[in-house]
């Protein structure tokens, strides 16, 4: 791993991996703390509409979590591959 561009790439990928770990923790916290529970006080169509919207929102955050996890894992794989080039 003597190529200067590889050294720079490793540094960039390491930074990316660290930041993705932080971002993932932030996403998990948002999913846990900032998504309302299903409505307990509403009834009928308003309750269904509210709960459906909350459900959609939660699923969208799950999509973001999956993408962040995948990005972090793939960054890790890339990092290992670059490091192995010697």
């Amino acid at each position: 791993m003597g190529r200067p561009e590889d050294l720079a790439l490793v540094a960039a990928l390491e930074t990316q991996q660290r930041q993705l770990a932080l971002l993932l923790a932030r996403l998990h916290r948002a999913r846990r703390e900032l998504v309302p529970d299903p409505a307990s006080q509403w009834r009928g169509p308003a309750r269904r509409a509210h709960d459906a919207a909350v459900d959609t929102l939660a699923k969208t955050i799950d999509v973001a979590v999956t993408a962040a996890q995948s990005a972090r894992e793939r960054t890790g794989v890339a990092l290992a591959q670059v490091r192995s080039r010697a």
Partner: protein
Amino acid sequence: MPDDLIISGGGSTAVATDELYANAQMLARLARESAAMRSQVAAIDAAVGPGSWHGSLAGAPASAALAERDLDDLAQALDRVHLQAQLLQYSLVTVAEGYGLAERLADALVTGIASSAGSLVGRLLPGLLVSTAGGAIVLGTAAALVIGGRNLGELVGRDRGVSRGSSFARNNNGIVTNAATVSLIRAAATAVGGGALGALGLPPGLASAAPGALPFAARTIMAAGSRLGLLDETSVRLHSSHGVQAVAPPSGYAERLARVPGHSWSGGAQVVIERYSSASGPDRFEVYVSGTADFSPAAGPEPWDMTSNLANTAGPGSGSYDSVVEAMRLAGVEKDSPVQFTGYSQGGGTVARLAASGEFNTQGVLAFGGPTGQVPIPASVPAVLVEHMDDPVPALGGMQANHHALVVERDVFGGRDIPNQYAVPSHHREYYVQTAELMDEARSDQVRDGIEQLDRFTDGATLRSSRAYRFERVSETSTP
């Protein structure tokens, strides 16, 4: 539902439950957080992506390019989270605004109709107005009288229930403990105000729109009662005072209500005043004022009576009001001393009057179950007014006109069985304690900010003394 808190006022036109507000505020935070995370993704992408300093991912493994694609997906998902959170938050706020608009329209309609009708009656039949106004202003309690209470004291019970009403009143308390009945009482109180001015000849439109119509009606009723030897105001004097055990400033709504004296367990004391010293200013005072102790319309030795209730509606200068002013003087309150008031029932109405007088450096008002609707608390004074929707007592104060105040309502027995140990259970102190505890657990910024502001009053201050005061009326035949 019994445990729902309905939040309104606080300078907003919206009306909604604590849960709805808490969810809307949570979604607003999620929208901000997703936008911040989106910026973080853009920064990550810029550091390694095709536009970064090293030009491209040439030379990087395929997995690095796949990670780039994941970052794009992540960015898009966060954009959607931001949009969905904002849309849902706007929907909830719109619902709250819609409730608020509907409520204001209904209030305006009821107020207009009731006041105009009262004004017309007063204009055409002033004698009828005078003879019935007393009954109208206490319509809620009068309704309970109809169902069997022998006097008003039997209806609401006293403090922890020394008197709890006749069995007939208790078994039929659903008539009074009802949000619809309470709305009617509010309208009736408003109508009495218009009616009194109508009796003077003001046209219905003017009479119903006139500010101070309810106080004028109360004065009219007191004048009429005076001819019968009832509702006669007197001067007051200190009966006794004693020290109260307290070690720290109050924290939370429930703790504040717990410091309001109760006649049956405070040795008859009606006022408790805590004095605090702080390094950065003059001494400050927390003043707690109790509820009605004597429900007879004839003034006896107790200043916390029906005469004071009506006099508080009429304006400053009731037996209870004068007693608190004297207690404050004895406690060392000066014109510029910062003061914060907490009251329950009549105490709620009294503290609102004290704040409205402008004679004190009032820093905050907290009233539980007080008839405060038509008492003009200055907009500069932070106020939290707690009213049960099925409690007729706050309704006797007329429509709530203190729109800057945070108004917290609760339908205590909505949808559940009404216990029959009290004739008017929803006014009973233990249910306001429950509501205060729910407020302490509330998640909405409004309710949390309300108590933070009240608690801030004694931040960094040291409790110097806490004293309870008992006052009595001085009748013409009393010895000095």
